């Protein structure tokens, strides 16, 4: 097999494998599912390219970084579609039969779903009707504050 065929096969195998894992274990985190599939496929890709072209060849390096970029791009795309407000509006607004009413956003549902998602990944926990930050949540908030300072988000534009 030539270089583009090996790379294409690795990419399609990752998409198919991820789709399969998400169907077998629908509750499993979709990002972790891609990492679980992407790592073994990536290792196979590197070993195939290494054996065919040499471990320190340009083919091996270019194929590896291109595959890693594809995995990050795919994670970016599906987390965008799953988590983005814009994507949800676009998916909910059909034309011309159904028209979205922009003055009535489902904001309460949005908050509850976010709280559930944050609880699911263990950054917050709930006790009765109150929510609190876990140790992991505090760590995430500290990191986010550092990054906000780095990107100057705290300063007015």
């Amino acid at each position, binding site marked *: 097999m030539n270089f583009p065929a090996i790379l294409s096969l690795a990419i399609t195998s990752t998409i198919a494998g991820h*789709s399969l894992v998400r169907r077998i274990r629908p509750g499993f985190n979709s990002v972790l599912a891609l990492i679980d599939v992407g790592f073994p496929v990536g290792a196979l890709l590197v070993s195939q390219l290494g054996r065919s072209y040499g471990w320190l060849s340009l083919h091996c390096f270019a194929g590896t*970084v291109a595959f890693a970029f594809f995995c990050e791009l795919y994670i970016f795309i599906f987390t965008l579609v799953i988590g983005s407000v814009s994507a949800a*509006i676009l*998916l909910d*607004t*059909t034309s011309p039969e159904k028209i979205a009413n922009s003055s009535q956003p489902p904001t309460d549902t949005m908050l509850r*779903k976010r709280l559930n998602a944050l609880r699911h990944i263990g950054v*917050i926990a709930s006790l009765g009707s109150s929510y609190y*930050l876990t140790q992991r949540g*505090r760590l995430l908030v500290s990191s986010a504050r550092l990054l906000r300072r780095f990107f100057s988000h705290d300063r007015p534009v």
Partner: protein
Amino acid sequence: MSSAILASEFIFVLANALSYSFFFKHRQPFRTERGIFIFQAASFLLLVGCTVALPIFGRPLHEAYLLALAAVGIHGIYSLSFLELWSLTEGSYSLSVLLFLDRNRGEAEITELESLTSIAAHKTESRIDGLVRIGLLRVVAPGRVSRTAFGTAVACVFGLVVFLTNGRPLNR
């Protein structure tokens, strides 16, 4: 020679990071979503463009192709990570919830958190305006919008992604 070009690609990405850290991030146009996207996209296209143009300077075509692929990978991973972090820390709704809890000594009642629904309402309105501006939605009556043909095509791609990943959009 190709390893020297490969090293130059890494140096280019490092120069992007340093120039942002010490110069561009203090400039007002680079502190908006549009500005930072243009900055990263221009840098990405410049690097990939330079590697694609290598055959003009006598480099073999297959080598230029591999170096361009490496440039896409190296700069792509850097830019995508940069833009994701920039965007997440700038206006993520989940982060707003976490920062609210942190400011509230780490815990809050659901009734207190409900004050954040105004952020969600504002976000929904501003995103609809944004989608109208880029031609994915059109206003059909005051306060009512529908998808354009372009919007329908993009929604089909999103639908395919939801199908492939067996995902459930969080905000629907």
